[in-house]
């Protein structure tokens, strides 16, 4: 089967019924038609065994058989090795290419759309009402989310801590590699930065100094949060490593500090006095927890949140 056939398969509504699997595929490792028929179900069972798709009893029976059947055992071993090698082959550049962020930058359009949507949500009170009514219908998609109810109503701000942390994590992944425009307002205009973002978030913000840990403020930017504006402050040390503090209204009086790990990045997040905070940094920053502790305290948090 080549790509043409793949296309045809896509075009037909119900391709390849069970009765006629693609037995006509043009390749020749099967010794003969008869032998292929004989071993087909056997091969399928071995396949399912390798992929752990068999029910427990069938699996046990097959396992017992493998002890006596050297040919089948050999086949299973070869297929397992194949599977492991395929994983190595295809996942080889996963780690090297800092997953996600290159692709994320290419996805500007929907970020802008999301931003626009957030702006509309803020601008139109009428829309908010409409959205509140419509949400239950189009948010079943959102129930991929682990927690449903609280998150389903647009009128509630980002209550879901993990959703909040993910947004912070994504914002970190998107902006921390940015060389030319890491921030909208630079640290040189710190006073303006604070005034501006405080006004947009409707709450007086503070930017905790992290000089003690070797991180200086780079600046900040405004971002669309889950249900309103969010602010991102960026810090950088001499080695070029960056941290971000992501801030958005959470509507939660006080939430404990949690950790979200995503590959090469870590995010500590919590809530204090109605504001959600997330400190993100590279997994290589061993002091991230200490820094988060410091930042949490500087922003009105208590050690009881830890």
């Amino acid at each position: 089967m080549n790509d043409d056939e793949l296309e045809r398969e896509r075009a037909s509504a119900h391709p390849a019924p069970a009765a006629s699997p693609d037995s006509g595929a043009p390749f020749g490792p099967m010794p003969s038609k008869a032998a292929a028929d004989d071993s087909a179900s056997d091969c399928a069972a071995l396949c399912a065994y390798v992929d752990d798709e068999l029910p427990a009893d069938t699996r046990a029976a097959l396992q017992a058989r493998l002890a006596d059947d050297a040919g089948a055992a050999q086949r299973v071993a070869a297929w397992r090795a194949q599977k492991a090698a395929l994983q190595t082959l295809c996942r080889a550049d996963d780690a090297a290419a800092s997953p996600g962020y290159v692709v994320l930058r290419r996805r500007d359009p929907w970020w802008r759309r999301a931003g626009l949507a957030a702006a509309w949500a803020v601008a139109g009170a009428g829309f908010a009402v409409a959205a509140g009514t419509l949400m239950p219908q189009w948010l079943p998609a959102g129930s991929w989310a682990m927690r449903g109810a609280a998150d389903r109503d647009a009128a509630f701000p980002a209550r879901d801590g993990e959703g909040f942390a993910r947004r912070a994590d994504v914002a970190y992944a998107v902006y921390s590699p940015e060389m030319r425009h890491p921030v909208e307002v630079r640290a040189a205009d710190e006073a303006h930065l604070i005034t501006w973002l405080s006004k947009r978030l409707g709450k007086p913000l503070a930017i905790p100094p992290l000089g003690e840990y070797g991180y200086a403020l780079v600046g900040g930017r405004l971002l669309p949060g889950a249900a309103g504006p969010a602010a991102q402050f960026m810090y950088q040390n001499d080695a070029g490593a960056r941290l971000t503090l992501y801030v958005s209204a959470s509507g939660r009086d006080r939430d404990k500090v949690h950790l979200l790990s995503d590959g090469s990045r870590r995010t500590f997040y919590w809530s204090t006095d109605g504001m959600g905070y997330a400190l993100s940094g590279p997994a290589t920053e061993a002091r991230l927890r200490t820094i988060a502790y410091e930042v949490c305290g500087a922003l009105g948090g208590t050690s009881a949140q830890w």
Partner: protein
Amino acid sequence: MLRRPSAEFEAQVVAQLAPMRRYARALTGDAAWADDLVQDAAERALSRASSSRPDSNLRAWLLTILRHIYIDQLRGRREIAVDDESAPWRTLEAPHGEVDGLVLRDLQRALYLLPAAQREVLLLVCVEELSYQDASTVLGVPAGTVMSRLSRAREHLRVLLDRGPAQDPARHAAPLRVVGTTR
């Protein structure tokens, strides 16, 4: 405005970008094309958030979208028969991994010698670790077909690796093709 996906959904899709890209790269053997595919698939997924079903596997749903776009794009691209020297596995960089690079290069070459349908099912089950059920959803074929196709793919790959691509009769039966763009 109904197209605005929830933050949760967005995050879930973002978390699947790496597997999507991996699958797209393996499917196309072309990094740039793969990135385009991932972008298109992610956009389409986000604009159709409401059509995903919460009870099914998100990764499978995303890979289905990606695959449909891939097949659609195949139509828009001109297929050119090529000789071995410019075949995709010649120009793909040998991967660096714990397993011997040469072994992997042989595997890579063999993988691209497989018929597309066999390659796909191997990638979905072995690399993306989808269940047979999810793979059957992605491919739009019954689970039984997934299993039979998979076992044939495995045997085919084993034979290719055992005796090397030079003796593979499939090469003569179905001439190799590489997909070039006309855009």
